[in-house]
Every structure is written in structure tokens, then in C-alpha cells.
């Protein structure tokens, strides 16, 4: 990780409650803009099955993955625990060890990977 900032566009390039992606050699980065004009960047892959988070519905400081409705926190990149997951029977949860732990964050580290030049939770003023 470096402290270097990349100019990737202006705030107006991203719709409110939406996202745009930036292609990098390490894969696509999803850049989100919330209703309150905060901007966040994450790998464009969910921690569950690699779903394209940039295509999800943005609400609050979270995005819902379009593949299986996991809610991903935009600041941390971690999946928010949901009641359905907390109630999951460990035996039924199969390989998803994180899913079976009550209240635990359902996100095996490391995620999100930090991409050179882009830090999760970048400030609006620094994007433009």
C-alpha cells in the first residue's frame, strides 16, 4: 500500500446511491457514492462468492451484493452479520466457518485487499 492518490474522476461521475468501477492490474475497484455524498472504494468482489459489488443497491454506508444479498459495509469491506446468518446451524453452514459463529463478521480476512493508490474510505475532497 502506498499513500499516493490517483485522480480517477469527479464526484459527479458517480450517481448518488450508485457506483462506478476503475480497472487496475489487480482487478476492478468499485467506487461508491452514498446518499450523503460520502465516497468509498472496495475491491469489486464480495467476500462470499466474488460478486460484483458495484452492481448492488447502496443504502446508508453499505452495499447489498447482487448475487446473494449479503450486506457489505463500505468502510470496512466486511459483511454485516444478519439475523439469518446468526441463526444458521453450524452443521448446515458447511465450509462457511465465519457464517456459523454467532454475531461474528461473516468475512474471512484478508478483505478487502488494499490497492495501491486507493484507500477504502477516501474523502470526497480528495477524489476530485
Amino acid at each position, binding site marked *: 500500500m502506498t499513500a499516493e492518490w490517483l485522480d480517477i474522476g469527479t464526484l459527479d461521475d458517480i450517481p448518488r446511491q*450508485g457506483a462506478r468501477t476503475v480497472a487496475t492490474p489487480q482487478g476492478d475497484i468499485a467506487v461508491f457514492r452514498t446518499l450523503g455524498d460520502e465516497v468509498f472504494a472496495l475491491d469489486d468482489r464480495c467476500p462470499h462468492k466474488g460478486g460484483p459489488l458495484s452492481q448492488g*443497491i447502496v*443504502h446508508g454506508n453499505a452495499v447489498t451484493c447482487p448475487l446473494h444479498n449479503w450486506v457489505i459495509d463500505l468502510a470496512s469491506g466486511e459483511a454485516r452479520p444478519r439475523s439469518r446468518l446468526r441463526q444458521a446451524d453450524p452443521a448446515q453452514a458447511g465450509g462457511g466457518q465465519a457464517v456459523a459463529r454467532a454475531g461474528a463478521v461473516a468475512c474471512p480476512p484478508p478483505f478487502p485487499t488494499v490497492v495501491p493508490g486507493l484507500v477504502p474510505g477516501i474523502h470526497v475532497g480528495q477524489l476530485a
Partner: protein
Amino acid sequence: MIEALGWTTPDGCHSCRPALNYYLLCAWPGEYRDDAQSRFVNERMHANIQKDGTYSVIPRMWGGQTTAAELRAIADVVDRYQIPSVKVTGGQRLDLLGVRKEQLPDVWRDLNAAGMVSGHAYGKALRTVKTCVGSEWCRFGTQDSTAMGVALEKMTWGSWHPHKVKLAVSGCPRNCAEATIKDFGVIAVESGWELHIGGNGGIKLRGTDFLCKVATEADVLEYCAAFLQLYREEARYLERTAPWLERAGLEHVRKRVVEDEASRKALQQRFLYASALPRTIPGPNVLRRNRPSSARLRR
């Protein structure tokens, strides 16, 4: 709206926003401006997201009918964009699987140019109208079920619903189009058309309930529009016709759609008004071109 109702979050969540968007669109079809950010990605892309992040594209085939020209245009699209998989669906059309997101505008432009529109195979919307070949070909057919299916599809396509809606028309009681597990199923008999409602396949199989028998094609269209509008107005978002019918009761639907002619015609008028509006948008064209530079923001 969210503010007026005292929501605890300023912009809701992935469950309530699409629901709210639907209710407003249903109640004020001419006035409400659809909120793209409250729609699931499939309804924004006019394609169905798959496990690897690619999309599948299903052009509409009216009543399951196609032509050499349409098939040729589809084959050209498959070749041109090297679409890896083509599958015949359960709804009597063709599914083009493995289309990359950035290819979608071009794929749809080419399909539109050949006269094809979206089959809405991804939407909380009118999906497909399955038909058998009917009296035009079949030695058992009693009515032209294919033409009836096409007429139903031309009337209902583009309509948004609380959940997906599937129709079917069978040309005789042998029921080759499986009309008795559809949201609105029509079965032709010698003396007219039997109308059946509230069926679905899916996780919980439910056969239809018999609604009534009507005499003419115009009747079928009128009763169908009225039934769908009642469902649109009364069901909860993501509630299919089967659970809604069990909740609302068959008698309630009979009363509003069959016995009360004024109610039926009013429902029909509201349906025809609302479902015609989305069709004024030319083709599935929501996607903009990507910016050329890879270091820039793109969709």
C-alpha cells in the same frame, strides 16, 4: 416519502427501497419517476446477473413464436459477441448466457435493430406467455391458443408487478401449455375459454383455482387485465399471485373481477394505462458507453 413516514434510515435498505419504488410506480404510473438506484441490477441492465458476474439476455418471443429472421439475428449476435451458451428456456424463448456487462448495450442495440425487445426474464414483471400450437395445427385444438397468447402478451408486456407473472394458453383441456400452474392460465374449450388463476411452480407448487368461463377473445383480455391490476394493487411486494390469492380469497377476486362489471372495467382501464407507459421508452437502452481510459471511472 421515507422522511414523511419516519423511516429510521435516510435511504432504507435493499429490501424496502425496491418495494417502495414499486408501490409508488403502481399508484402513480404517470407521475412517479422511477428510481433506478432502487432497482435490482437485473432491472437496470435488462439482463440477468449470473454467478460469475456475466449476464444472460432473453429477447421476447411473442407467445413462444419466432421466425427465421429473428433466429438469424440472434445467431449473428451470438457469433459477433462470442456468447458462450445458448439455451431454450422453460418459457419458450432463447437465453443467451455469458454476456459481459460492457457488451450489453451492443447486444441489445443489435437485437432491437432486428425488432426484438426485452423478454423481462429478470423482472418483477410480465415474463412469458406460454402457448401450444392450438387449432391452427393440432388435431385436438379447439381454439387458436397461439394467437390468444400473442394477444395477451402484447397487452401485458412491460407491466411491472409485485413479483414475476407468467401466463399460458392451452388450446384444449389436455393443457400442453401447463396453464394450470401459471399466475393466469387460459384453457380453450369448444364453447369458449376457461380462466384459471393463482398457480405457480417454484418452491411451493400450487395449481390454479378456476375463476370463470368466458366466450370471446376480448373477454379473455378484459378479465386478464382486471385480474392482474387487482393483484398489482393489492398484493405485497414480492408476493406472487398464489400466496396473495390464498390471503385475499378466491371469492374476493371473483367479486371484483367476475361479478362486478364496473369494477372489472375500471381495473382493466387502470391496467392498460399503466402498462402502456414503460413501452414508450425505446428498447432496453439504459447502459451508457464505458469511458475509454481504463484509469477512469466506468460503469
